[in-house]
């Protein structure tokens, strides 16, 4: 089976600004694939080229083994997109938003009606089917936007920052739905700037910054091979500690307040420094994506 998405040297320029800089990636059927990166990394630009809303500047991009430049309609027929910003139709009710969208895909009215009901039940909005969009909270709107993206039973679901700006409860609600879809075997492309979101939802991901892909792989593997198993985090430490860490040749990152030491044996490192270099605090924890992110992009991102 050919991959769902195949990008080679994919590039997007806006005038003199290069938003996506010759990236390569392949997304297979049935996986949840993440684009993790800070604002301005080029995630939305990449996604827009995939759903054929923005022409590619250079490179090759095939979706369902079709060229985005040649067969945008056939590609878009099989994609569902939940955009970063709210694009729900404020003039329609909750349910009408889905049926009208179904019409764009050529779904007969009756079928669209049934499908809307299923989807509204899936996201827990059936009771509010006649509500106007402006009566919905941010979290409900986002869930409705996801439902709308499923109206054509897409082979690929694209979620561009699906939980940005949501409160913690709503985020978990959205994650729940994404997990369900993933279990059902749907191919999902997700962008986010939340580490926990990427870690919990994605089978594979890329970390993107300044239009480039820095690393690619399953999140746990990436963390293990690039960071180590554990992190010793120290804050309020004496300057001598940094010198010591350097001497030992440990892999580390530091800003003015905090120091992170990446290691496979956190306990040993902790033992070695906790007493010798008194600090305000020192903990050992499992390494996560955040550590990888910090290590790859340095302090610049912390601003």
């Amino acid at each position: 089976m050919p991959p769902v998405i195949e990008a080679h040297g994919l590039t997007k320029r806006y005038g003199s600004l290069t938003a996506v800089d010759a990236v390569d990636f392949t997304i297979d059927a049935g996986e949840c694939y993440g684009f993790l990166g800070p604002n301005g990394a080029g995630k939305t630009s990449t996604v827009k080229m995939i759903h054929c809303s923005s022409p590619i500047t250079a490179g090759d991009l095939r979706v369902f083994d079709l060229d985005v430049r040649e067969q945008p309609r056939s590609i878009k027929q099989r994609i569902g997109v939940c955009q970063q910003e709210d694009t729900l139709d404020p003039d329609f009710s909750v349910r009408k938003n889905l049926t009208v969208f179904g019409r764009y895909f050529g779904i007969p009215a009756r079928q669209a009606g049934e499908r809307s009901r299923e989807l509204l039940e899936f996201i827990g909005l059936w009771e509010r089917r006649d509500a106007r969009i402006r009566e919905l909270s941010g979290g409900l709107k986002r869930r409705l936007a996801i439902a709308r993206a499923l109206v054509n039973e897409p082979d690929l679901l694209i979620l561009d920052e699906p939980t940005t700006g949501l409160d913690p409860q709503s985020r978990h609600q959205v994650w729940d739905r994404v997990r369900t879809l993933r279990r059902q075997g749907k191919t999902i492309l997700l962008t986010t700037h939340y580490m926990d979101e990427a870690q919990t939802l994605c089978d594979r991901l890329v970390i993107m910054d300044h239009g480039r892909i820095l690393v690619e792989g399953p999140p746990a593997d990436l963390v293990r091979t690039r960071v180590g198993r554990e992190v010793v985090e120290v804050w309020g430490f004496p300057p001598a500690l940094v010198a010591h860490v350097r001497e030992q040749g440990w892999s580390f990152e530091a800003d003015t307040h905090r120091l992170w030491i990446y290691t496979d044996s956190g306990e040993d490192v902790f033992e070695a420094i906790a007493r010798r270099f008194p600090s305000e605090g020192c903990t050992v924890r499992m390494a996560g994506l955040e550590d990888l992110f910090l290590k790859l992009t340095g302090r610049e991102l912390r601003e």
Partner: protein
Amino acid sequence: MSVADAVALVRNVSPRSLRVWERNRDVYFVTWKTNLFPPLAEPILYLMAFGAGVGALVKQVQYRGEMVGYTAFIAPGLLATQVMFQAFFETTYNTFVRMHYQRTFDAIITTPLSLEDVMAGELLWGATKGAIGTALMMLAISAFGLLHYPHALLIVPFSLLGGLFFAGLGLCFTGLVPQIDSFNFPTFLFTRWAQNLANALPLTHVANVIRELGFGRVPRDLVWDLLYLLVLALPLNVFGIHLMKRRLVK
């Protein structure tokens, strides 16, 4: 825009553009109460004002060598203006709201519709608004006995064509204006070329055809009038789509 661009653009328009027309129609029905009133009330106000005011002084006007009642002369002008305002307002103000504030087009172009489809749907809807407004206004004007049927019925399909011209003109502006405020004080309407385009040429044509039909006659040069409008409307529509595409595709 080259001829090749225009051809490519037209080839990207498909029957799916009707889905956008349907979307706008559905919104129209959701808000029908506010939509119905103005075209019905406007001519009544005008005709009463003109009839009682100017009409009391000027009972008859000379038109193409014959004398016609003053209000009968004015009414077709009201209809022509209605075609213009409805269609133009739709593809300027309303299209801008859908494009910029509601991001409706961003959502639709992720479906199998092309941006050209979306714009063609907007233009068709703009023309339809012209026709709806005209039909409503005709109801009110007919109450004054100023329209002669069945000829006057042809005014409705004709206003679709007139509407298409003004919808196209509106879309060109929407493709160009920096922000929606520009429509509140449309300086572009005061520039000479726009005035010539919007007023002098097509509006008088539209008014003349409507007047003849309203009097119960087939306009002498109907075929030429239709051709003339079509020849003006089509390139303007294509150019409007082009400008919108330039604005939206990044």
